[in-house]
């Protein structure tokens, strides 16, 4: 009897301890993951901010007008302080972040002083311009170091918590790849572009316009399927399913999914209810070997646009990713490029098939515009540009400026050192509306360490 009670009490105790232990373990794990996520965020955000910083400083180098330089410098200052706070959140004070912190302090001080000064009365001196150039170079170095470490962290699944635990237990033999990484990595790399997605991207606020320019009547589900088949160039025996948009959508559309019975390739697209225009199309299939050139793919994209009556478009950008070509087209009216009206296309480089089409921006903003005459002559606009820049190309273009208005600008493309910039000068008042540093290819990081 006594034995029975004892056994019961003991076993309840054991089970209780086990349950308690398990709960503790789970809680500890959840907290560990949470802490780890915070470190990861701080670290990745830091690298990202240095990226942005590098590009912003690069853009300020190409700027001329005081009115665009002051806000740009203020922006640099803002990013600097964010990056500074991210460095502060990283767990290890013993890491060689000194250089980064020093750099951030320098650039912060410089940009703050320059931004609050009246640059009209007191422009940047040559020495200041040179020190800005020096900071730009330094930013490139730090960016490349951090990128390399980041590549290692991601690739080898490194955990900041492991480093912390290793340090806490004073275990020297632990895997300190992160620390080693920071100490060994030293490479030179080129920069890359800014957060700004370029003129062919339309910002969110502008996006809410909801296809006001579309013409045509409401289509039925059945018509949506036949339109979809036309755009997807699919055979007749394809199996189609259609769904209507949910109530939360700002606009009416049909989602059509087409699946050919023979191959298991699926094409999906959304079609506007009004007029039956394709918003986007994606065909999911792998592309193994490149057989055609990017230029051939370009031709096949142009043919698709022509066949489907998308007219007056100009190729703006072509990029090859592995075995895919991605093209951006913008519309053109009276020889003026209209960047808000953009269409993106993805073409397979094995047979030239259109694997992707995205016309959301185009359908939302394309209409016949009254393009005003440029007030300034080209030469006058050209004088507004930083004299350091070597201008290679120019044209007229309509872009969305910072306040989301469409403005007619002179677009100048030019080089400064190794980088290429695109600068937009308002054709009416000569304002420097936008200065963009264009994307360079990114070196493939080797698996160092």
């Amino acid at each position: 009897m006594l034995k029975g009670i004892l056994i019961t009490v003991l076993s309840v105790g054991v089970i209780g301890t086990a349950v308690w232990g398990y709960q503790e373990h789970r809680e500890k794990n959840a907290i560990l993951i949470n802490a780890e996520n915070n470190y990861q965020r701080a670290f990745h955000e830091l690298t990202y901010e240095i990226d942005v910083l590098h590009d912003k400083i690069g853009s300020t180098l190409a700027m001329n007008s005081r009115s665009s330089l002051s806000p740009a410098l203020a922006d640099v200052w803002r990013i600097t302080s964010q990056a500074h706070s991210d460095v502060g959140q990283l767990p290890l004070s013993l890491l060689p972040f000194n250089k980064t912190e020093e750099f951030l302090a320098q650039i912060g001080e410089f940009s703050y002083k320059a931004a609050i000064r009246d640059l009209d009365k007191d422009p940047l001196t040559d020495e200041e311009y040179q020190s800005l150039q020096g900071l730009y170079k330094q930013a490139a170095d730090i960016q490349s170091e951090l990128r390399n470490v980041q590549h290692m962290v991601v690739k080898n699944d490194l955990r900041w918590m492991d480093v912390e635990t290793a340090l806490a237990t004073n275990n020297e033999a632990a895997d300190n790849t992160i620390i080693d990484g920071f100490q060994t990595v030293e490479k030179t790399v080129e920069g890359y572009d800014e957060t700004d997605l370029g003129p062919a991207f339309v910002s969110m606020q502008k996006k809410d316009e909801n296809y006001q320019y579309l013409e045509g009547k409401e289509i039925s589900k059945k018509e949506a399927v036949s339109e979809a088949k036309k755009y997807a160039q699919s055979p007749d025996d394809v199996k189609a399913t259609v769904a209507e948009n949910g109530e939360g959508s700002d606009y009416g559309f049909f989602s059509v999914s087409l699946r050919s019975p023979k191959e298991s390739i699926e094409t999906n697209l959304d079609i506007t209810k009004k007029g039956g225009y394709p918003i986007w199309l994606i065909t999911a299939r792998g592309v193994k070997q490149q057989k055609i050139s990017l230029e051939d793919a370009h031709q096949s994209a142009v043919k698709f646009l022509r066949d489907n009556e998308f007219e007056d478009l100009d190729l703006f950008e072509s990029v090859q990713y592995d075995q895919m070509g991605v093209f951006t087209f913008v519309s053109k009216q009276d020889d003026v490029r209209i960047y808000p009206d953009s269409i993106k296309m993805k073409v397979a480089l094995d047979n030239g098939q259109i694997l992707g089409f995205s016309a959301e921006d185009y359908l939302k903003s394309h209409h016949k515009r009254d393009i005003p005459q440029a007030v300034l002559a080209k030469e006058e606009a050209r004088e507004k540009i930083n004299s350091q820049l070597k201008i290679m190309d120019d044209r007229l273009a309509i872009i969305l400026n910072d306040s989301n208005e469409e403005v007619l600008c002179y677009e100048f493309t030019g080089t400064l050192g190794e980088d290429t910039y695109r600068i937009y000068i308002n054709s009416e008042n000569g304002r420097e509306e936008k200065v963009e540093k264009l994307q360079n290819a990114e070196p493939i990081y080797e698996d160092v360490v």
Partner: protein
Amino acid sequence: MMKQLLMFTKVMLILLLIATTIPMAELDKSANAFSNQVIRQGAIGDDVIELQARLQYLGFYNGKIDGVFGWGTYWALRNFQYEFGLDIDGLAGSGTKEKLVSASNYDKQYVKNQINQGNSFTHYGGTDLSQQAPANNSGSNQNDGNASSGNSGGTTSANVPSGFSENDIQMMANAVYGEARGEPYIGQVAVAAVILNRVESASFPDTVYGVIFEPRAFTAVADGQIWLTPNETAREAVIDAINGWDPSGDALYYFNPDTATSPWIWTRPQIKKIGQHIFCK
């Protein structure tokens, strides 16, 4: 008459000789030259490596020979076309390539070796090539050629969408894989698009990392599934989303109705369903 005939056959013979030798010579010259493609900006691969090396040989191109037709290569090509009286279109078509081949030399073996060894090197004409590369491979920067993402043709750089680095893409691919690996392809693109829509939105953090690691935002981040190694599909989906495809219809949230624990999420206006996920405003 007889003489005339003899003359005629002689001329014919000479013509025939010329006709047979000329193409031979040409064939010889272009034996290890460009393929037939017209090379345009944005392209990657062996033809671009040759293009850059030849432009550098002539002193037009001072950048890195990396096999990616970027802006530097573009301006170099246009300057070449200008100097040689060709149409200035920035495209390397047959005319431009012919001019380029006849005006420059291309030491393919040398260039390929340097690239395979991961050296930084140049290919200028008029200088001994051995002085344009590190004395011998120090072995410090070994690059196994097509290391990352199955890049074709031993290029040493890659195109990345404007405003994003390869690491950013990798991290987003991690998030997409952790959140939506069982979903159809467009479902994965849509999840990536939601991350980007949040970056753009005023009510969420302003960076990709801020959005991904925002506490309690994504279950895959909270339970550690984000650290699974993503596959190529997730990566491709991320690139599509960055390049402007948004199958979600501008959604800011999504949830799986079978596993969602928060009743709040049901109050969001729903846009559409893709695979298991419902996307909402």
